[in-house]
């Protein structure tokens, strides 16, 4: 019986430990495959910029359905993928979205807009 008590105590303590260490703040953003997309981009993987952009557009639908916000850099990165395909209209569109959702990006987005036109 005492052994049971000890086990119970240990279990409860373990549970409280896990609860105490768990992150309390709920997620601000819906990430979907964004980190994997960045990795694919950096590795210059077999996925073409077009395929990467399509994946990100599909994820964007899921993010919107989730009710959570689009992560920082998401629209900018999608814009970069369009820019690399020569689609400067979509590049400008995504860069503008990034800027309106995150005013902190303004200086860099303006810099890109000035410099990405070739």
């Amino acid at each position, binding site marked *: 019986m005492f052994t049971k008590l000890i086990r119970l105590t*240990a279990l409860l303590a373990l549970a409280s430990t896990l609860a*105490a260490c768990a*992150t*309390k703040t709920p997620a601000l953003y819906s990430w979907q495959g964004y980190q994997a997309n960045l990795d694919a981009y*950096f590795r210059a993987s077999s996925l073409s910029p077009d395929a990467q952009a399509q994946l990100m557009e599909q994820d964007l639908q899921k993010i919107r359905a989730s009710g959570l916000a689009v992560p920082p850099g998401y629209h900018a990165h999608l814009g970069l993928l369009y820019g690399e395909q020569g689609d400067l209209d979509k590049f400008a569109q995504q860069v503008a979205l990034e800027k309106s959702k995150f005013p*902190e990006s303004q*200086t860099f987005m303006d810099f890109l807009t000035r410099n990405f036109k070739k």
Partner: protein
Amino acid sequence: MKYQTFSKIAIAFVAVFLIAGCATKQPGWDYSAYKASKPRSILVLSPINNSPDITATYSVMSFVTKPLSEAGYYVMPVAMVAEAFKENGLTQPSDMHQTPPAKLREIFGADSALYITVTKFGVSYTVVNSETTVQVQGKLVDLKTGTTLWQGVAQASSVEGEQQQGGLGALLVSAIIKQVLASTFDNSHKYSGIATERLLATGEKGSGLLFGPRSPSYSKD
């Protein structure tokens, strides 16, 4: 009587585990400069890689956005940042890290910059084991003043919490299996993600990053 002693020991053990479980990495970091600076945005420069594996830099780079954003900061789009440096002739992380803070602030408009160095990345073999370890160091710097706001180090390893049992024969077999697995799967990338999340964790009193202005926990830590 005897059982009560047992239960006391059990509770003591659990208490120790509790403290160890939430242990801080660098107790006593002075947060006064960090709190005064109130950075809203972070520019993450491509990490310097001191390991032999050339994939380390961009493996770590692909993992930094999520923890920093969820902590409440705006993170400059990492791939675009890398491209902007490239356009200006800087392809090596060590060159990027040499750029004066004022210049970084002028181009990117970020309040702060995060300088990361990868010190370990990959598999090391001993006779009876193989271990995948990733270790990262980070330094957050105010781009207006050049002041260091925070510093940290974190590691993730495949042998964490592993139990050594079953004698030498079993160890050798497990080492062979692990070597095969380590070369088949992209293990380093996985531990790179864990180490990066640990480095950039918030809510760890005395060692971690503070919450940023987009977090509901901002200025409560």
